[in-house]
Structures are given as C-alpha cells and as structure tokens.
C-alpha cells in the first residue's frame, strides 16, 4: 500500500501570519519585567543555525506573550530575563500548561540571576505543582543532538549542568543558569560584546554548540539516542 499526504504545514514563507512553516522560528517570551536582555542575539543565532544545519531560521524573531493565540504555532520559545517579574495570570498559566503538554519546548536561561530564577521557578511550579526541575544527565540526547558537547557552557559558568522539567515523557523545559544567550551578541569587529567569565578556552564554542543543540533537540527529540548512532558516538567520544 502506498499513501501520500500532499499538503503541508511546512511551506508558509510568511511566518508573521502566525505559522512557523518550514523554517525554525526563534520565538521569545515577553512578560511584564525585563524580558529582553539581549535584543540582537537572535540574529547571530539564526545566522549560525542556517549556515550549519539543514534548517533555515529567519533573522527576525517572533515575540509572544502567554496570552497570544499564536503561541501554539511556535513550538520553541526562549524565556530569559533579569530580575523578578509579576506573577502571570491564571489564564496565562493555563496557556503555559497547554503549550508544554501539547509538545512545546522552552529554553529557560536565568543567566544566574537569582531574582529572575526564583520568579521563573514560581511560574513553573504554578503550572506543574507536581513536578520539579531535575538535572539532565550528560548522556541525554540534548548533549549530542548535533554537536558532542564537552561541558555546559555559556557566558558564565555558574552551574556545570542543565536542569529540565519532564512533561509527557520529554524534557519540555531546559534550564541553564549560564547566560547562554549572552555569548551571542558581538560588536562590529566580531568580538563578544559581553565578557566571558571566567574566560575558559573553548567557552564560546561550547556555548554555541549547546545553543544549537537545544534547538535541534526541540525538533529531533531523542533521535541521537537511537541505537544506530551509539557505536559512532562512542567512537568519537573515545577519541
């Protein structure tokens, strides 16, 4: 038997119509607070993503709130900020819960900011009181979804591991405290805008690798944990 499904949700070129189409859209969550510490970071992320992977990422990002109906058309969301923020409404928490249960993935970058981190924890606790963030093991697919990541990097090295919130048998919220978005902004000469702390060799490269890995993981899931990949990965890790 052969079958074709000849239509596609994949072909919308105009993502502003509310559909991510065949391109991977960098969507960022806006909220009442300091939600956008790096307004230009997405441009370089999209450049690297498009140049190095088989996907395209437009240089424009999509800004969404938890009240937007379009939220559900953008399955990948960056949630970062500085300082605490007012609590989300019940409707917004309900949308957040639906979003994650429906297959959405959120990259939560606290940048090591305690106030923002606590506010974010409160938000997710309201949405999923029965769940808690757990350490993501080093063998998880997110560390090998595209690159083999040596260590959890970012502009800072506050925490050497990622934590995640598991929803519907997948890591739906990936949290880093290392300001991973902060490694991307560059000045006109191509140098990082913000200093890396402590400035370990390879810190930028590992941060770039981890950012792209998280995005590819949102699209490929546990693909790199399939048996067919293991001998090759083990051989590369051995080297």
């Amino acid at each position: 038997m052969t079958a074709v499904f000849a239509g596609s949700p994949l072909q919308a070129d105009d993502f502003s119509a509310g559909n991510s189409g065949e391109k991977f859209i960098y969507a960022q969550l806006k909220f009442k607070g300091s939600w956008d510490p790096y307004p230009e970071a997405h441009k370089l992320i999209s450049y690297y993503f498009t140049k190095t992977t088989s996907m395209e990422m437009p240089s424009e990002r999509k800004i969404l709130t938890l009240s937007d109906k379009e939220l559900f058309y953008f399955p990948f969301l960056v949630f970062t900020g500085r300082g605490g923020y007012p609590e989300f409404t019940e409707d917004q928490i309900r949308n957040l819960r639906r979003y994650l249960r429906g297959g959405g993935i959120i990259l939560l970058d606290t940048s090591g900011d305690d106030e923002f981190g606590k506010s974010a924890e409160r938000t997710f606790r309201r949405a999923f009181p029965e769940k808690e963030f757990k350490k993501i093991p080093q063998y998880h697919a997110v560390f090998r979804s595209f690159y083999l990541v040596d260590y959890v990097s970012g502009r800072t090295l506050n925490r050497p591991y990622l934590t995640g919130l598991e929803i519907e048998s997948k890591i739906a919220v990936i949290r880093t405290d290392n300001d991973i978005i902060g490694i991307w902004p560059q000045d006109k000469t191509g140098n990082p805008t913000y200093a890396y702390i402590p400035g370990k060799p390879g810190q930028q490269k590992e941060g770039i690798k981890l950012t792209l890995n998280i995005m590819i993981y949102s699209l490929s899931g546990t693909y790199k944990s399939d048996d067919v990949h293991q001998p090759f990965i083990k051989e590369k890790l051995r080297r």
Partner: protein
Amino acid sequence: MNFIFTPPNLYIFLLIPAAAAAMILRPRERIFSLRLLIYFFLFLIILSPRLELSKPNKKKPAVGIFIDGSLSMGISERTDNALRTARQLYSALKSEADLAFYKFSDRIEKIVYENLNGFAADGESTDLSKVIRDTRYHGKIIISDGRYNEGINPLNVNEINSVPIYVTGPGGGNRSVDLGIGDLKIPGFGFRGEKIDIDFKISAGGSPKENETMVYLKEKGKLIDSRRIEISGKKEIPVNLSFTPDKVGLKNYNLEVKALAEEINEANNIRNFQVNINRKKIRILYVAGRPSWEYSLLRRLLKSDWQIDLVSFLILRNPANRTIVPENELSLIHFPAREMFTKKIDDFDLLIYENFSYKRFFPQAYLSHIKKFVNEGGAFLMMGGKESFAGGNYSGTPLEDILPVDIAESSGWKTETFRAKVKKDSRHPVLDIAGDPEISEALWRDMPPLTGYDENLKAKDGATVLLEGPGGGRLFLHYQNPGVGAAQP
C-alpha cells in the same frame, strides 16, 4: 443376579414362624421359648449375617487387537508375520472374547477380520501412545515392531495401567538398518527476527556400519541449518536445530536425515512441517530530509507505541552547510542509504519519506528496490514538503509507479491557508480518528489549517482520494494497493 438376605428381611423371616410356634406351647414353655427367641434375635442384630445368592455373568470380555500398519512394518516379512499372529489370536480367542481388529499408524482405523488379506503397511508414522490411550476394551493386544516415531513415549501415557496390554512383535527378518525422525517438537508460530528451535529425535534401528550422518533443515530447498550426528551405539539421538526467519507468512520447512548406505527404508528420513511467522512489532523506516515539527511529533508518537520498532534517519546537515568545529565534535553519522534501501529494506513493514529528496544520497536505481518492496507487500508513505514529489525529483522514477499520484516534472507549489475536508462518502480506517464516523468528520473539520499544497499533483486512476483541499480538486490523502490490482472501480 444376586438376592441377598439381610436384616430385617432375615429376622422377619425367622421371627414370625418362631413366634407362631411359641404361641401353641403351654404358658410356661411359651415364656421360655419367647425368651429364647429374644436372645436369638439379639444375637442376629449383633452379628448381622448375610446370605447372598448370585448367578455367574455370561458376557464375554471385549479385546482390541491393534496391528501396526506403518511403513516400517513393510520391511521384510513383518506384515505377513503380524497377520499370521492376528489370525492365530482370532482362532484362540473368538469363543472367549469379543474381538475387534484395528490398524494403527499415525491414526487408528477399525478393520474387519475377514479383510485382513488386504492389509497394507502404508502409514506415515507410528503413534503407539494413541493406542495406549484407547481404553474401550477390557484388554488390548498390540502387534508392532515397536518403532514409534510420533506421540510421546507410550510408557509415559497416563492410561498405561488402565487395562491389561499384551505386546508381541511381528518377528521375522533380521535387524534392518533404519534411521527415522520422530518426536518432532515445533512451535505453531514464530516471530520474524527471533530464533525458532526445532527439537526432534532420530531413532536408529539395526546395527549400522557408519558412525555418523547429517541432519538438514531446509526451506524451499534452501539449507538453513544442519548438524552432524553420531549414531554409533545409540538407539535414539535427541537433536536440536534452529533458525531465525526473516520474512512473515506461513512457511514450509523440511527436515531430512541423510540416509545410510545400507538403510532399507528412507521414507521416514524426511519430515515436513509448517510454521506461521508473524511480525512481533511493526518495523518502520522513517527518513526525513530536514528537522521539522512534523518529524518531532510523529517520531514521538511512533516511539511511544511499544508495538512499533522505529528506525529513523534525519538529515541534519547538507553538504553545502558549514561546520564550525572539527568533524569529531559532530554527532552526525553517514546516512547508510545503500544498506537501508538495498539490503535491509525487507526488514521493514512501512517506509516513510518526509520532505526527502533522494538525489543527494543515492542513485535512482535504489528506488526500484522500494518499488519491489511495495509490490511484495510493504507499505510506503510520502509526506509532502518542498522536497517531496516533483520537488524531490520523483517524477518518472520507479516511485511514481507505486504512488497514487501523477507527479509533474515541476512542482506547482502554492501557498494558501485552508482546511482539508474528508471527501464525501470516504471510508477508511485512517479517517476514523474517533471511532465514530460523524465525530471523526467533525474532528477533521476542526484540524489546524494547512498552508500549502502542490497543485500539479493529480490522483491516478484507481487511487482513492480521502481528503480534499481547495476547490475539491486538490488531493491530500490518498492510497492505492499496487499489488492487488492495477485498476480498481
């Protein structure tokens, strides 16, 4: 017939006349007599004697005479000797017992004594345990060479001690050399990709000069397992062979013991059997030309089903893409197209192409393997995207032959937001997403909108359109069964 005197029968029988006799005596003697009677009555109550009268039963016992009619009895004069024995038994026992004659091999059939001359030893195997289980008779006589090769060891049958059994051999002839396959244990079904064990025993009669022989297991003449067996000094040799089927379906196999040079009966050297090979899991090969949300969600759905074994390949990087790190820091592997689409394709039940253009990875000739795979029962699904159909250069390829659409040479991709509709009167399990046609149709109506389609795709004659797009003429979900019939009304 038994007639039994028991109290109170006996007591009344004795008491009435005794009491009557006592009444005619004089009072003094009467009292004495009555006292004596009471003592005697008490004596009877305590001892309760019985008097039993019976007549002997004149019915004759039923005796079954079972003559071995298997092929091994055809050797030398075994059958003649067996029939001679049967006739002698008839002469000796007909007045003392009700005799019934049977021929047995792999089954038991009643025969008429007068037709013994027509007895032929043509049974394919010998199942003595069936004879032992038959408990209709007061006794059984079995005439056999004892070479059972089917059923369990007759000595282990539960009914072995239920009636007397007398066994006699056919006699005659010398101990002929004969190997036979018996006690064959095979599963009724197996699973593709999982080992199946075949256990059996080789019986070795006579005194063969050779010390060993070979055992072969074949499927349609193709050897799948073999074993060298030592037979010297052994009467029964347990053997195990095994194989791992790679295709589903009802399969025919045969076991063969290589005949010895002096073997006089080779008919029992071969046993044929069938095993129904099923698939344990549905094996799916899913190839996606690039990461997408469709891949992400469909993969998760397929992975969550324990009845599905999913192998997927996702093209994460194209040759034109740059790399910012050394090769050994990439987790990417080479796409094993040749292995998947030539050698391993028959391992799968369903092949999915999502937005995948073959040209960058393998030659068009590999698509013929997919066509053959589908024509031999496999399933294929092509999911739309920029690099499917015309965009994937499938026009004029073997894949177009099996797809239910005609693929134009160039893609007519149109960006338009719409909702696909179930085609009127369409019925297919794929459309039944709710278990109820009306609810399913409502759910299809409420599905999220699609945003594009290839307007150059047309359904072939014989294809069934299940979902339609804008204007009713656009095709969205359709299927055909290439191997069933080229044209369907």
